[in-house]
């Protein structure tokens, strides 16, 4: 730039050179703009992901020996009742937290979608309060609310004559506790996503439906739900991925036995099991094998999602 301005007459060589340099920069600059992501991700994301497969084939002690053992970790894993326990727990917690949460979010979004709703901003903002509360804080509060002896829930139940329930000790009840915490943190966020999608539905479509004699349930069933299908699929995918990662809630729920979420591993999830094996037992190879299984589950889910979403889009484009 400066050469251009300073020497307008003595042209050619410097101008050409700087223009060429600039052209080269213009051509390569996009790669520099996206490079930070790819460099950081390669080091801290992709490489670990690939290396995880390698470690899973070893008997790998971080402070001792590393011995190649082929697929022994996997045969051991599939014969390990603790693994199946953690898998079932993860799926159970996922279903218990996702299904009611998304239905609730859908209902709340429907309520919030009234054009004449007063204090709409207040309601919307309130829905996000759980989202900004950390998992650790959430867990500590809910663990107390679900406490067997002094928890508010058991107190409320006692008013209607129900005996105290040891929520955290039972398998299904402990799932319920973890699911409640997960659902509480995310239902408001999903409500806002659904609300945004609801507001994108053109009003005249409802008018047309009404003219055709569709009642409010029919409108909901045949207009609202189909229009929301993409966002519903989106939230199901994100909740599934989130559900497979549940870790902090079970870790902090039971301070007496953190790594197993209780004496009988009643609410130990897959990631917590991975952590227990990797960083509690220092069995890096075995822990990595759990990571590989999680990866396969996620690829399967992504594949199913791809099939479903292409089928849906197929009708449109």
């Amino acid at each position, binding site marked *: 730039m400066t050469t251009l301005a300073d020497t307008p007459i003595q042209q050619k060589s410097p101008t050409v050179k700087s223009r060429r340099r600039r052209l080269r*920069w213009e051509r390569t*600059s*996009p790669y520099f*703009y*996206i490079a930070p*992501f790819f460099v*950081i991700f390669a*080091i*801290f*994301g992709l490489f*670990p*992901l690939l290396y*995880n497969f390698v*470690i899973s084939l070893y008997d790998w002690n971080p402070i001792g020996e590393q011995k190649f053992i082929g697929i022994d970790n996997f045969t051991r894993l599939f014969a390990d009742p603790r693994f199946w326990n953690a898998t079932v727990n993860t799926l159970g917690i996922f279903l218990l937290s996702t299904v009611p949460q998304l239905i609730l979010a859908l209902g*709340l979004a429907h*309520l919030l*979608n*009234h*054009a*004449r*709703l*007063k204090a709409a901003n207040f309601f919307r*903002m*309130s*829905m*996000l*309060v759980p*989202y*900004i*509360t*950390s*998992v*650790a*804080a*959430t867990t*500590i*509060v809910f663990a*107390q*609310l679900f406490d067997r*002896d*002094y928890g508010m829930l058991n107190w409320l139940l006692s008013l209607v004559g129900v005996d105290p329930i040891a929520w955290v000790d039972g398998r299904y009840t402990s799932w319920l506790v973890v699911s409640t915490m997960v659902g509480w943190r995310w239902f408001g966020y999903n409500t806002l*996503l659904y609300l945004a*999608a609801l507001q*994108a539905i053109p*009003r005249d479509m*409802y*008018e047309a439906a*009404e*003219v055709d004699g569709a009642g*409010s349930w029919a409108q909901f069933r045949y207009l609202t739900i189909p229009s929301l299908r993409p966002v519903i699929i*989106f939230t199901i995918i994100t909740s599934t991925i989130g559900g497979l*990662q549940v870790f*902090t809630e079970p870790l902090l729920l039971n301070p007496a036995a953190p790594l197993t979420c209780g004496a009988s591993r009643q609410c130990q999830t897959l990631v917590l099991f991975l*952590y227990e094996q990797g*960083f509690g037992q220092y069995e890096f190879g075995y*822990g*990595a094998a*759990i990571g590989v299984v*999680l990866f396969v589950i*996620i690829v399967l889910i992504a594949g199913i999602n791809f099939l479903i979403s292409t089928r849906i889009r197929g009708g449109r484009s």
Partner: protein
Amino acid sequence: MSATTSHREDEAIAVAEAMTVSPESPRRRRRSPIGRVRWWTYLLLIVAVLACAFPLYWMFVVATAGNAAAHQIPPRLIPGGEGVAIAQLVFTTVPFVQSLINSAIVATTIGVGTALLCSIAGFAFAKLQFPGRDVLFVLVIITMTVPMQLAIIPQYMVISAIGWVDTLQALIVPGLANAFGIFWMRQHIGSTVSDELMQAAKLDGAGTWQIFWQIVFPVVRPAAFVLGLLNFVSTWNDFLWPFIVLKTPELFTVQLAIRQLQNSRAIDLGLAMAGSFLATIPLLIVFFFVGRRLVSGIMDGAFKG
């Protein structure tokens, strides 16, 4: 004008139209679900608000009334007067102030860093032509769907190999790669910055770097702000990764400090609740000022059919 009259007008119009207007003719107004707001709508929404707020309120009650409040039947529902004393105990039991500072450093760096880096990368993907662009963008999308939790063991080994165990950069640097943010900023830049504007700037001799800073970034700054805010919140609240790479209490983030409080006196819930509440206050303050932008950001950016 009161709401009831307008409702009646609405219904009257609707009835009149239903009787006289043929289906093809345009209708100016419509009823459900936009028409009237029934009382039970408010009731249900207020129940939802209470469900959102109560756990935090309960945290506050125990944090100010002490451990005894958590072991009281029927439960105490009014805050007590011991808040300051309990907070002081929090600060002396663990290096809580230092933890707040650590969390602020990490979350702010990641918030600002991702807002900038994702804007630039999103700009490149949305508006620049270069070989391999689409393939690279598909890669970004794929990385969004793979949760990195499953690779924590080799991730820890990488951090350990470069000597970053027990440092804050072990949290900051990996957090700067944010695939979701690139996706989000690409959508925003694609839909808000017109190609004509880009062409005009190019004809004026502006390079892509100048175009980004002078034309694109000012336009998408609100979206970048919301993105930074979302990453700030999720980093502040993150638990697993700091839990794995940090060892010294002086380097702990607030979330780890909460766990320490929970463990240091398993019976003293007042301490853990006070720590939890103190760790949430900064986000509540941020939320008070910019929560509205967060709401609209999530609503118009997070997902587009």
